[in-house]
C-alpha cells in the first residue's frame, strides 16, 4: 500500500512538471515506475492492490475509448476513414512485424510488438492538436479519424489475441451474445439510463462504476475478453448520454490510469538482460514507418507530401494502447521493448508535433532554393 502512495505522489509531481513543460506525462510515469521498481531502487513492488488498481485503469481507459466511438459518425465518414486507416494499418503492421521477427522475436511475439508498434496514442495526438493550435489544419481531421480507425482495429486485436486456443466458433458466439445483451440493455433501457444520469446525487457515478466493473467480471466469468466488452459497453452507452458517462467515468480513469502506467514501469525487469541494439532499431523503425504511412496518407488525402509530414508529426507518439497490449499479452522482453518504444516515440512525438510547422516551412524553403519553378506545385 505504501508503494502506491509513494508512486502516486511521485506521479503527481511529474504530472505538474509535464503540464508546465507541455510534454506528455505517460513516458514520465513509466520512467518513474522503472526508477522506483524492480529495475531501479526497488522501493515499490506490485501487490494485490496495485494490480487491482492497474486493471481498473485499463478497463476505464477502454470504456472511455468506447464512449467516443460513435458508429454512425464513422459510417458517415467511411471513405476518408477507411483509406487512410488501411494505409496506416498495413504499412506499420508490416514494418513492425518484419522488424520484430528479424530481431529474433517469435511469430506471436512479433505480432504483439507489431500491434503496439502500429497503434499511436490517441490521447497524445488529440492533446497535441489542441495545445499546438492545429485544429483548423486540414490534416487535423485526418489525424482524428486515423485515431478512431486505430481504436476500431484495437478491438479486433483484442479479440484475436484473447482467442488463444479456444474453440473459435464458441468464442465468437459468446462474444456476439454479450454484445447483443449490451446493445439490448442500452436500447430498451435507454430511458432508465438517462433518468439515472440526470440525477444530482451520487447515483450516476456509482452506476457508471458498477456497470463497468460488472461487465468486466461477467466477461471474465464467461471467458470472453473483458477489455473488448468494456469497449462495447462504452459504445452501447454512447447511444444514451455519452457526455454524462464521460464525466462520471473520468475521475476513475484519470486516477487508475496513472497507477496502471507507473506499475507497468515497476514491473519492467532488466534481469533478463537488455538488448539496447534491438530497442534502438525498434524505436527508429517506429518513427520511420509512421513517416512512410504519414506521407502516403498525406499524398492520398491532401495530395501533398508536406501534409503527410504534419500527419507524421502528430502520430509518432505511441502510448496508452501500446502499453495496454504489452500488459495484456507481452512477455517481459516484449514489455521492455514496448516500454522503450513508448518512452522514445512519445517524447520525440511531442517535439515533432510542436515544431512540424517550422519543419514544413524549412523543407518548403529548401525546395524553393533548389528549383524556383517548383513553387507552382506546392499549392493545394
Amino acid at each position, binding site marked *: 500500500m505504501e508503494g502506491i502512495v509513494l508512486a502516486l505522489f511521485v506521479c503527481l509531481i511529474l504530472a505538474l512538471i509535464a503540464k508546465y513543460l507541455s510534454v506528455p506525462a505517460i513516458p514520465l510515469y513509466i520512467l518513474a515506475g522503472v526508477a522506483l521498481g524492480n529495475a531501479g531502487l526497488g522501493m515499490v513492488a506490485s501487490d494485490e492492490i496495485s494490480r487491482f488498481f492497474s486493471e481498473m485503469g485499463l478497463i476505464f481507459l477502454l470504456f472511455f475509448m468506447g464512449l467516443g*466511438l460513435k458508429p454512425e*459518425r464513422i459510417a458517415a465518414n467511411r471513405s476518408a476513414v477507411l483509406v487512410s486507416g488501411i494505409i496506416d494499418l498495413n504499412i506499420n503492421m508490416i514494418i513492425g512485424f518484419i522488424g520484430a521477427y528479424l530481431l529474433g522475436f517469435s511469430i506471436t511475439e512479433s505480432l504483439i510488438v507489431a500491434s503496439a508498434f502500429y497503434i499511436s496514442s490517441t490521447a497524445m495526438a488529440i492533446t497535441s492538436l*489542441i495545445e499546438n493550435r492545429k*485544429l*483548423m*489544419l486540414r490534416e487535423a481531421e485526418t489525424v*482524428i479519424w486515423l485515431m*478512431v480507425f486505430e481504436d476500431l482495429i484495437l478491438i479486433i486485436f483484442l479479440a484475436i489475441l484473447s482467442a488463444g486456443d479456444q474453440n473459435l466458433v464458441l468464442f465468437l458466439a459468446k462474444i456476439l451474445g454479450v454484445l447483443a445483451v449490451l446493445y439490448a440493455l442500452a436500447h430498451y433501457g435507454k430511458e432508465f439510463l438517462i433518468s439515472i444520469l440526470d440525477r444530482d446525487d451520487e447515483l450516476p457515478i456509482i452506476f457508471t462504476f458498477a456497470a463497468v466493473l460488472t461487465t468486466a467480471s461477467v466477461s471474465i466469468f464467461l471467458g470472453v475478453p473483458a477489455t473488448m466488452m468494456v469497449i462495447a459497453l462504452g459504445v452501447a452507452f454512447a447511444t444514451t448520454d455519452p457526455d454524462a458517462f464521460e464525466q462520471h467515468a473520468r475521475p476513475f480513469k484519470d486516477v487508475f490510469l496513472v497507477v496502471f502506467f507507473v506499475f507497468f514501469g515497476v514491473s519492467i525487469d532488466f534481469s533478463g538482460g537488455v538488448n539496447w541494439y534491438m530497442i534502438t532499431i525498434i524505436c527508429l523503425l517506429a518513427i520511420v514507418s509512421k513517416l512512410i504511412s504519414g506521407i502516403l496518407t498525406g499524398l492520398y488525402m491532401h495530395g501533398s507530401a508536406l501534409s503527410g509530414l504534419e500527419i507524421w508529426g502528430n502520430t509518432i507518439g505511441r502510448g496508452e494502447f501500446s502499453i495496454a497490449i504489452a500488459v495484456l499479452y507481452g512477455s517481459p522482453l516484449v514489455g521492455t521493448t514496448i516500454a522503450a518504444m513508448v518512452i522514445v516515440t512519445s517524447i520525440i512525438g511531442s517535439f515533432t508535433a510542436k515544431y512540424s510547422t517550422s519543419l514544413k516551412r524549412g523543407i518548403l524553403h529548401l525546395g524553393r532554393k533548389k528549383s524556383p519553378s517548383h513553387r507552382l506545385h506546392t499549392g493545394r
Partner: protein
Amino acid sequence: MSAMSLRSLNLPGVGTKYEFETDKGDTVAIFFTKTGTIQMYTLQKGCKTPSAAEMTPVEARRLGNILTGAIIEADQESVEIAFSALADLRVTIHSFLIPKTVAGRTIEDLQIRAKTGATVIAVCRQDRNIVNPPPSFVFETGDAALVIGESDQIKMFEREIMVD
C-alpha cells in the same frame, strides 16, 4: 446574411467545430474543445496558415458581446440582443456601478422610468442578486444595477441618473 453557410461538425475526442466563410473569402473556425477551452482560428483568403487564439468560456462570451456591437468598459458591461425575427428589435442590457449620489434613494423617487424609459431589472449586492427590484427598493453604495432598454434609453439613464 442567410447566404453565409455555417458548418458544424463533431470531432471525436476533440469537441465541436463551427466554420464559416465570409463574403470576402476569409474563413473563421471556432472549436469548443472537451478540455473546456474555446479556440478561434482565422484564415485570410489566399493564406495557408491560420492564426489562432485560445479563450476561456468567459473570454469567449466577452468576445461575443464585442462582436454583437455592444460597448464594454472596464467594470461596466453591456450586451445588445437583436431579435431578427421581430423586425430587428434591439434591446440593450447595461450594468452600472451605483455612485454615492444615488445611494440611499429608491427607484421610485429617482423617477427612473419617467425620466429615461429604462428599467432596472436586477441589482447585484455583495454577490447576492435581487431580480426585478420593487419601486421601493433602496440603492446602497457598492450595488451594481442591471438596466434594460433601447440604447438611447440607456444613454439617457447614464446622463440623468448616474451623474446626479
